[in-house]
């Protein structure tokens, strides 16, 4: 063995393989995604919350009514990811964006495949790109893409 003074380094992975219990409302939302259906929770005042919450954020009342919303919407805020990390939704530069779907009153966070930062703008219309393999997971939505006219 050499008497090298070189400092050693090694790759180290810390991983917890959690299973998260999603609860009854998100559970229905996720199941809907598998059928290419996006649903929101309708509150007593008529607001539609996407993704749905179990309770009305205004008054804490339980919500059980889910209503479908469109698979198109508008970007209200975004940030550009020029160097995607492993396991992110896209392996090329993309945007994380808040998207208000048509028929919804709140925003959903998801990825936008815009091909380049110069194409991104607040107010841009986008449409869902569904994953081919859907299991009832947020990744059943592969990402959003600019809506073609």
């Amino acid at each position, binding site marked *: *063995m050499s008497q*090298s*003074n*070189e*400092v*050693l*380094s*090694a*790759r*180290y*992975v*810390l*991983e*917890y*393989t*959690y*299973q*998260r*219990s*999603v609860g*009854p409302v*998100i*559970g*229905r939302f*996720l*199941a*809907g995604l*598998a*059928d290419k259906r996006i649903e929101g929770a309708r509150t007593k005042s008529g607001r539609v919350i996407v993704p749905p919450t179990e309770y009305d954020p205004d008054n804490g009342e339980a919500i059980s009514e889910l209503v479908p919303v469109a698979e198109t919407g508008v970007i209200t805020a975004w940030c550009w990811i020029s160097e995607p990390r*492993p*396991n992110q939704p896209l392996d090329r530069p993309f945007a994380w964006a808040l998207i208000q779907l048509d028929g919804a009153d709140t925003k959903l966070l998801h990825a936008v495949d815009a091909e380049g930062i110069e194409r991104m703008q607040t107010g841009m219309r986008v449409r869902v790109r569904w994953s081919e393999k859907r299991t*009832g*997971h947020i990744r059943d939505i592969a990402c959003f893409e600019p809506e073609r006219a």
Partner: protein
Amino acid sequence: MKEPIKVMPGPVRLEYTVIAGRHLSRYLRALAEGRLLGGRCPACRKVYVPSRGACPTCALPTDEEVEVSDRGTVTTFCVINIAFDNAALPPPYAAASVLLDGADIPIFHLIGGTSVDQVRMGLRVRAVWVEKSKLGPTLESIRWFEPSGEPDADYSSFREHV
């Protein structure tokens, strides 16, 4: 229509590059040679295995390198009864703090070569090294510690380390 989803995978995964530093690198290289290295504090004379470069009590560099024995005493232990991903051994098995002869701080390792009901505080153990061609700069160069057959150590000899 699909049944509501009950659980979803939510793994937490952190990928690091760990840089061992000079002292830990020497300790790891020594393991690849089948030796256990510590560092002695010039003031309190305690030997830390592995040495991280400084005495945590005296705040002085532990530059004096000391080879310690690959035999030691179980100061405390636990029995693992539940199987989990990447478990070192099929349960039940024991993991123990082993105070190596010549060291003033225990290292943590597996206990093998015996049944878990034989593992106890004060048990004398010796390192079982992997075969020479498999030695590397890792504590996995020691497969586990097994009973050495010596009489149990007296509690007073390791009381300070429990």
